[in-house]
């Protein structure tokens, strides 16, 4: 084994030793490459940081916080560039807490709103072993690392830009040492395992691998199980309010579950599912207000940047008010997620998903998932087209709302069964659906935000302290939101034209397999 499978740090390599290796022996082994300087031993706490859904790891990079002697430094190893390091003071939670410069610039678009969490911790004794040239310049680095409570040693080598040859030579010498092998598992993976995590173990996507011929009932069960896992995975983060995405993913899991139960009635037994439908509706309602406020808060900062500076400044009381409302709403949410009703539901739901009662006693449940899924998607697509065509190019607000829900149901069906349908078959539909959903979603968010704005306006008006400038600014913001909303309304006709285009219709018609099912 010569490749370092475990660690993807590009210019770093990690070697593992089963046996202890005194640094002096390491120094002696490297002597032929030049003068060797062994640094003093340093106690080090290393923390791997990533978002709950492993965005940093997914980008091919690593973000590491090291603490030693009361000082903290961040080490960012992008997938394709040399590492960069920066001192940090205080806690780093969000991208905005990262030091200005390349670390923040690289990571802000990767993390977006997600918080950095400690995914793994390692306590180490570390020595820096350097190979020097005639000018006493470092030409190769080896970190000798001993994990606390562990005799095995890890050696990290780093190839320095412009000193590749020396770096490779050192690496070879280390590999030639007795009992040294490339580390199989990355330190991140090992440290994360201690928290019961594995890099890439969470994603909000439904990345199931369904076979086309799997019975539809079993496929639906797999989908629901997967959604139940996602729901459960996000509860603690939502309660602890680590970042806004936990609640978002939790809600999406609830909505997808509801959609599955509603859409797959020929496969899942609607009567048996009825009590859960009720609980899911409750959960949907319980999590709604906090999410709406999250979205408004996330958006309001963007709106303020687009408004005139004095208007933006006058909106501060609105921002404060939203903050306050959101905190209140989160307390209620946390209480619901900690309630006996919730835990009872989860327990019963899990049991139900494992039971025979889940699937309907119908022929459809035993048919291959591919044809059943295609059939459902085709019908959902048809329903959407019919409804939209009945409403003309600029549907009324209520119509936009209905269409948004229809589009979501269609989207969920596609996501559930994409693997069984073949990803490329569904692609044109998914692409156009995304575009039209963005329009419908933005239209809806703006609608909700205008209602919220009116509500806050009334409240602030009865607060004696609120200045006229704030109320005026809110009026301006409201007009701004309305204009925006109009734009999305306007966009709808264009989006719908593409969405109902012949090429998409054809792709939808072919979903069940070419020639097999002519519709």
């Amino acid at each position: 084994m010569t490749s370092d499978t475990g660690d993807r740090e590009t210019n770093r390599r990690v070697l593992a030793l089963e046996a202890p290796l005194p640094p002096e022996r390491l120094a002696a082994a490297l002597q032929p490459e030049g003068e060797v300087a062994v640094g003093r031993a340093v106690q080090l706490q290393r923390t791997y940081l990533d978002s709950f859904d492993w965005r940093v790891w997914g980008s091919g990079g690593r973000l590491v916080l090291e603490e030693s002697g009361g000082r903290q430094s961040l080490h960012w190893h992008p997938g394709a560039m040399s590492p960069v390091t920066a001192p940090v003071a205080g806690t780093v939670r969000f991208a905005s807490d990262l030091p200005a410069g390349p670390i923040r610039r690289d990571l802000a678009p990767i993390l977006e709103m997600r918080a950095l969490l400690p995914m793994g911790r390692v306590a180490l004794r570390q020595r820096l072993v350097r190979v020097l040239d005639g000018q006493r310049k470092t030409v190769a680095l080896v970190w000798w690392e001993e994990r606390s409570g562990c005799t095995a040693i890890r050696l990290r080598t780093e190839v320095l830009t412009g000193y590749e040859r020396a770096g490779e030579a050192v690496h070879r010498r280390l590999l030639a040492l007795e009992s040294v092998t490339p580390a199989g598992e990355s330190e991140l993976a090992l440290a994360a395992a201690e928290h019961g995590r594995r890099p890439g173990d969470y994603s909000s996507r439904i990345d199931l691998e369904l076979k086309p011929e799997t019975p539809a009932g079993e496929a639906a069960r797999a989908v629901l199980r997967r959604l139940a896992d996602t729901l459960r995975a996000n509860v603690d983060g939502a309660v602890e309010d680590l970042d806004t995405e936990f609640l978002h993913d939790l809600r999406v899991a609830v909505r997808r579950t509801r959609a599955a139960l509603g859409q797959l009635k020929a496969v899942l037994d609607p009567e048996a599912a009825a009590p859960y439908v009720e609980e899911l509706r409750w959960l949907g309602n319980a999590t709604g207000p906090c999410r709406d406020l999250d979205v408004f808060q996330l958006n309001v900062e963007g709106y303020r940047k687009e408004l005139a500076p004095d208007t933006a400044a006058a909106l501060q009381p609105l921002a404060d008010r939203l903050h306050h409302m959101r905190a209140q709403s989160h307390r209620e949410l946390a209480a619901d997620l900690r309630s006996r009703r919730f835990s009872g539901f989860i327990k019963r739901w899990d049991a139900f998903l494992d039971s025979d009662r889940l699937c309907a006693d119908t022929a459809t449940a035993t048919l291959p998932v591919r044809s059943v899924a295609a059939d459902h998607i085709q019908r959902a697509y048809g329903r959407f087209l019919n409804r939209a065509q009945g409403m003309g190019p600029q549907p009324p607000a209520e119509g936009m709302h209905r269409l948004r829900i229809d589009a979501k149901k269609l989207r969920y069906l596609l996501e559930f069964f994409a693997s069984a349908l073949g990803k490329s078959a569904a692609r044109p539909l998914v692409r156009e659906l995304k575009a039209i959903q963005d329009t419908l979603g933005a239209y809806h968010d703006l609608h909700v935000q205008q209602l919220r704005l009116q509500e806050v306006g009334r409240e602030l008006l009865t607060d004696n302290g609120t200045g006229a400038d704030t109320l005026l600014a809110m009026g301006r913001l409201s007009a701004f939101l309305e204009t925006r909303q109009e734009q999305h309304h306007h966009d709808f006709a264009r989006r719908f034209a593409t969405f109902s285009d012949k090429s998409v219709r054809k792709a939808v018609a072919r979903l069940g397999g070419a020639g097999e099912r002519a519709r």
Partner: protein
Amino acid sequence: MRVIAVWSIKGGVGKTTAAVNLAALAAREGARALLWDLDPQGGASFLLRVSPRRKASPRRLARRSVELRRMVRATDVPNLDLLPSDLTYRTLELELNARKSPSRRLAVKLTPLDGHYDWVVLDCAPSVTLVSEAVLHAADDLLVPVIPSALSLRTLEQTRRFIAQTRSKAVRVLPFLSMVDRRRRLHREGCERFAGGAEGFLRTIVPMSSIVERAAEARLPLFAVAPSSRATRAFASLWQEVREQSASPTD
């Protein structure tokens, strides 16, 4: 990416000292920095203990097709890379001259590094040559160390005129007082005259200090030798000013 040239027609005014220490300070904050030693004396390369790679040469440096990245070497300061120089680089002038639009060549060579480095610091030789003209085209800011003496101020004027003659787009000239010895009357007067940033001077005054010599002997940045000395603090404040003056490259 922001390109700062430490530049003066006059020799021995503290260019290399400033270039090395400012680049090291940028790197220490967590920015990716590149120091380009454009002086065949190789002062910056000496201070950072780096010699050019064997396959690097002034000819390859001048060639459009050869990426600068391939000549870069990591220094012992984390985040700081160096394009080193030595006496063989005295022919860079000739190499540039042999090519099309030589005065734009350095700027052209730097373009692909955008996105990789936040700061590029150019350490220039004390002369008025084709290379120094090319530097004017490559740099966003020109940091000019001035020792408070009549002769130095005259060269600052010459510098400004030279820039006005050669430069198409505006480069910002940022003079600062360097190697100031307050025991000398002329130096004290210079400090008074340019105090608080008069006549386009940066506010920081870099004092004459034995720490600078010590750091040069140890071949280390000042902060690694005497983290809290007056000279170290002066360079830190100079860096702060330069960073504020340049539109921040990070946002």
